[in-house]
């Protein structure tokens, strides 16, 4: 026999937009598609779009402020800006691309800080949504990278670029029948795909995880019928939410770093061969 649950019971009336009746409203992919914040004619401005613009504005304003009046002995914001610049130049470009990579420092610098701030929006109160978890954005980033390193490789090395990418040296020639199709697939087709999916899926999974524990902490906290299981479950979910928030800050920075690092690796293929 099932007990009828009144419509006004705890858990039945909150979290609008999540189906599930009075059961646990487990979040699914629909939480990523919210109503537009405002509309301008035929254009709907959604939350990810708005956050993207805010992120771009933060980056532009901060670095303009930091480098507006550069001093020989940097102080304050300029110090922070130079620290970030040196991290990209010495930590990524010099190690991975080496000579001939200096002109790509601004490119990688912009990517790293934009992706970092967009990932950080996942844990910043009020925003609490990573725009990088919408697939269109990582795809756009990955395509920008793809259409930078492939043409640059042809400009820099000419037809030798294809030779270095598809015919690795130091291998007996019959192996090329096996190796060249695999290299073609992995270097020119799978590469941009995984480059985008890696960033997207990480932020998508992180946002879902945080949402699940946030809803669980709220759902299990039922003041109407006090129970030990509910209190322990709610407190446990809240503790997990706190731990995962710290974890997501780490993941956000790590994914921005990995995206930039892989961009540098692809560019180094274009600059100096595979």
């Amino acid at each position: 026999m099932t007990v009828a649950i009144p419509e006004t019971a705890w858990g039945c009336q909150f979290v609008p937009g999540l189906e599930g009746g009075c059961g646990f409203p487990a979040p699914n992919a629909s939480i990523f598609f919210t109503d537009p914040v405002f509309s301008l004619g035929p254009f709907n401005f959604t939350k990810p779009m708005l956050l993207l613009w805010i992120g771009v504005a933060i980056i532009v304003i901060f670095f303009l402020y930091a480098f507006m009046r550069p001093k020989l002995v940097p102080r304050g914001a300029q110090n922070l800006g130079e620290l970030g610049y040196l991290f990209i130049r010495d930590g990524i470009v010099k190690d991975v691309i080496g000579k001939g990579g200096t002109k790509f420092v601004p490119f990688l610098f912009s990517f790293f800080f934009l992706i970092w701030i967009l990932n950080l929006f996942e844990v910043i109160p009020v925003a609490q949504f990573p725009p990088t978890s919408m697939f269109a954005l990582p795809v756009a980033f990955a395509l920008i990278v793809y259409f930078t390193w492939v043409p640059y490789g042809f400009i820099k090395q000419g037809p030798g670029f294809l030779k270095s990418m598809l015919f690795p040296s130091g291998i007996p020639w019959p192996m090329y029948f096996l190796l060249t199709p695999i290299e073609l697939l992995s270097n020119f087709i799978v590469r941009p795909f995984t480059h985008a999916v890696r960033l997207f899926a990480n932020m998508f999974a992180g946002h879902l995880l945080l949402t699940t524990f946030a809803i669980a902490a709220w759902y299990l906290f039922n003041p109407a019928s006090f129970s030990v299981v509910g209190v322990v479950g709610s407190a446990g979910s809240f503790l997990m939410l706190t731990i995962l928030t710290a974890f997501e800050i780490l993941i956000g920075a790590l994914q921005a770093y990995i995206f930039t690092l892989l961009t540098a690796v692809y560019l180094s293929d274009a600059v100096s061969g595979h």
Partner: protein
Amino acid sequence: MTLLAEVYGSIGSVGYGLAAIGPGIGIGIIFGQGVQAIARQPEAYGVIRQNMLLGFALAEALALIGFVVPFIFGAGPQ
């Protein structure tokens, strides 16, 4: 045609579980060997960490592609 066995429900989730096995082992090996390399040669920390993260990212991609599958294919026919 008679059906001998049928599996239905959120098969994509099972697929994700299967897809996570290989990358799980791979990431374990990468970080295990990376920590060992740092312990043996602490002065090469920067280069080792960078290559460690690179290998981690490449191995992780497979599991992440698997993670997206249940959301795309959903619960399937009931």
